[in-house]
């Protein structure tokens, strides 16, 4: 059974239809990426999965229908969304941000262990644990966003443009850590990225979105070899 099975999903912002019935699936343990130009519907896809926009169609997560459920219920089922723009709680400390990530959990002991796990992935966050999160650098805030998502002990992590606005070295470091999280913590990931090369390197499956439709899908290698993808998104 696939971890996530999306069928004929449409999404609407008021009268505007942003997704026109897309279908895709995501295997447990895998990293899947959604590629596409600006306005193709990548962010909307992630937002739809979390119940943040009005949708039609079906989203099955671990066999359960989750479309139409309130965001906090989907989250507590183990779907962690790392939003575009990082979504930092700027006025509380770094550590409080992380604790908020485990808000839905009750297993205090395991939460403590997970906090340490996050700090081993991101030692910088430990150095800054008592600092107001709004004063962290962009890269640190992105790491904080991933760390906050990890604190949920998620089965599925939705990552929206994690490389956005970061220096190339930081991006490299971050994607290395994401790979380790995927392998060590068995967290499946759905990754939205403008940087297609980067995304295809991390992912094993990929979908290409164009104006609200899935136009190509396949393994990352197949997609990377595809003539149109190469010309339009990889640039060679």
């Amino acid at each position, binding site marked *: 059974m696939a971890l996530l099975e999306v069928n004929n999903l449409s999404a609407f912002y008021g009268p505007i239809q942003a997704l026109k019935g897309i279908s895709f699936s995501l295997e447990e343990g895998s990293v899947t990426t959604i590629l596409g130009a600006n306005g193709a519907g990548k962010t909307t896809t992630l937002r739809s999965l979390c119940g943040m926009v009005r949708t039609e169609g079906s989203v099955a997560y671990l066999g359960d229908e989750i479309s139409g459920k309130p965001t906090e219920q989907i989250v507590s089922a183990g779907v*962690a969304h790392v*939003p575009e723009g990082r979504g*930092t*709680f*700027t006025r509380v400390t770094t550590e*409080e941000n992380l*604790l908020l990530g485990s*808000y839905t959990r009750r297993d205090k002991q395991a939460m403590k262990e997970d906090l340490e796990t996050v700090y081993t992935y991101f030692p910088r966050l430990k150095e800054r644990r008592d600092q107001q999160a709004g004063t962290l650098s962009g890269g640190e805030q992105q790491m904080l966003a991933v760390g906050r998502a990890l604190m*949920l002990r998620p089965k599925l992590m939705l990552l929206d443009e994690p490389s956005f606005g970061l220096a190339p070295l930081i991006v490299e470091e971050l994607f290395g850590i994401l790979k380790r999280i995927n392998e060590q913590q068995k967290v499946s990931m759905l990754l939205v990225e403008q940087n297609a090369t980067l995304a295809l390197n991390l992912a094993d499956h990929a979908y290409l979105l164009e104006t609200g439709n899935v136009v190509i899908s396949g393994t990352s290698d197949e997609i990377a070899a595809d003539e149109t993808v190469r010309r339009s998104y990889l640039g060679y």
Partner: protein
Amino acid sequence: MDLFLQQTLDGLATGAIYASLALAVVMIYQAIDHFNFAQGEMAMFSTFVAWQLIAWGMPFWFAFLICLVLSFIGGMLIERIVFAPIHDAPVLSHIVVFIALTLIFNALAGFIWDFTIKEFPSPFPAKLPFETNLIGPHELGVVVITLFMLGLIYVFFRFTSVGLAMRAAAANPISAALVGISVKKMLALGWGLAALVGAVAGMMIAPKVYLEPNMMLGILLYGFAGAVVGGLTSPGGAVIGGFLMGVLENLAGTYVIGSELKLTFALVVIVAVLLFKPAGLFGRVVVQRV
């Protein structure tokens, strides 16, 4: 010198009331970005409920606690029934609803309990166990009870996970939902708490100003002034602002302008702060990109 000390301490006692109202207003302001004009009338109504319970023969502190529970539930209901449906509506809709609530509570209190002035008992002993002419027993009691409540609220917001979640939901509702916080529940909880804090303020001031439907009008104005002085973005600042207003009001009334112009003083302070330091003493300057 005695007069100065007396006036200052007495100011702290009324300041405690203003601080509570300022805190209630700021708590709601943080969550929904609007100023709740009805806060005073809600507090007045709570006080009437307590008066009724006492009139039915309940001991004061028992009535006090039941009144707090009822106010908390009432505050949550107001949020769920009245404000949840207009959550995304423009500011004017909110203002209209605030005014409506003010009028409804005022008229309802008058309808049920009529507009004649009632005496509200003070729960504190008539004589202090020690000799002093600096502060009255009721005033001292008010300061103690209010500080105790403010302390509890501080601990709640600072050290509990629900308190943290409430702060998170107010500051960043989208991210809060994404970590699994029910923003709706937090909003309702915030209203419940604000109503509870207001109820404490109402029950503490009622023995001094006597109970009647319009008793909170002037007091809320000072509460607003306290909130504005301290900064609408800072709950701690609002509390300090409230105490400051109480003391300044008394000192200005005694030494400068006389008691008739005291209320004007609150308005002057509001205007002055908004003119010269709009963020308040402890508020954050919010820069918005347009």
